[in-house]
């Protein structure tokens, strides 16, 4: 963890550079809540011991950074999506295919999150769009402060589509708002149809589920209807699109969703 502002772990790297910065401007500071007060009372720790009401959300700092990112996206007409999944769901392949299909239509930029390596950012750059890699070191999720710093490097164009590919993990990224318009959860059919019930927080937080690698369905016993029912059980409002980056199935519907929601 950065010892000055607590921003991320000491192993955090953004665009391959260790995360270091001065803290004299632009950093968020907590304001004391208006209702905070203290009162003296008798206690075993002695006469000076007192109880102080705080009533502060543990995620308030992350949420404040997320709000700042959201304002930045709104001011620049950037449509930001937070792509979440387990490792190996095929989200980088889906993303590169999506970028290829959108080429010439919409400017696209990508923030890639992984514990280690810049393999994914390199795969994205090979499609011709800008990408910044965040390496979280031992961290299990991206947070809104990392995104703010990545945006300084990436500088996405106004009116662009920004994909944030989160660390592959169906648990931790659910709790951390990055300032995105929507979380999009990607589940591949090789993972089992019960994942929405096993990892309900992520499916509850997402607005859209892409059920990916559907070209493999003939070789599997995956029950698509059951999986969709499970997803709607934890999130009755979730939209589901069946996709395959390999066969191209569902890509029109997914691109249609992007055009409808992003413009």
């Amino acid at each position, binding site marked *: 963890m950065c010892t000055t502002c607590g921003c991320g772990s000491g192993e955090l790297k953004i665009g391959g550079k260790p995360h270091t910065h001065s803290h004299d401007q632009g950093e968020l500071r907590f304001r004391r809540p208006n209702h905070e007060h203290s009162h003296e009372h008798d206690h075993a720790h002695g006469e000076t011991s*007192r109880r102080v009401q705080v009533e502060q*959300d543990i995620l308030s700092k992350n949420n404040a950074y997320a709000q700042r990112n959201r304002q930045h996206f709104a001011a620049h007409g950037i449509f930001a999506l937070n792509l979440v999944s387990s490792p190996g769901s095929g989200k980088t392949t889906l993303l590169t295919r999506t970028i290829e299909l959108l080429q010439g239509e919409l400017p696209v930029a990508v923030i890639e999150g992984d514990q280690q390596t810049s393999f994914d950012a390199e795969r994205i750059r090979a499609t011709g769009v800008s990408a910044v890699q965040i390496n979280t070191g031992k961290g299990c999720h991206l947070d809104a402060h990392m995104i703010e710093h990545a945006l300084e490097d990436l500088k996405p164009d106004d009116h662009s589509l920004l994909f944030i590919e989160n660390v592959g993990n169906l648990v931790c990224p659910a*709790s951390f708002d990055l300032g995105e318009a929507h979380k999009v959860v990607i589940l591949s059919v090789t993972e089992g149809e019960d994942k929405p019930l096993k990892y309900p927080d992520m499916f509850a937080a997402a607005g859209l589920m892409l059920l990916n690698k559907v070209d493999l369905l003939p070789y599997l016993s995956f029950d698509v209807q059951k999986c969709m029912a499970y997803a*709607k059980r934890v999130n009755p409002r979730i939209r589901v699109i069946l996709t395959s980056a390999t066969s191209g199935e569902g890509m029109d519907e997914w691109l249609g969703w992007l055009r409808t929601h992003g413009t």
Partner: protein
Amino acid sequence: MHEMSLAESVLEIIENSAAQHGSAKVHAVWLEIGQLAGVEVEAMRFCFDAVTRGSIADGARLEIIETPGTGRCLNCGKTIHLIERYDLCPECDMPVEVIGGTEMRVKELEME
């Protein structure tokens, strides 16, 4: 394990609050954690002990108040108690919308 990040945020809130009140020692911390907040309470205790070591909250007692999950049935509108996010309405057997139990908050501190 995002509880480590959460524990670091808790410590930051503690340090800010203690500084505002001119205190250098925190004896006890009350957290409110919803049962649907995606937080493993035992992991939170472990991480709290780890991150507070050597800080003003070193050795502080951690009290965790767990608040129950509640949801509203999308069919009959009744408020029901949820053990899991995917619980169905016991009367309609239909999905419910979560309306409570996702909080994670530092409620109160005891300090010198």
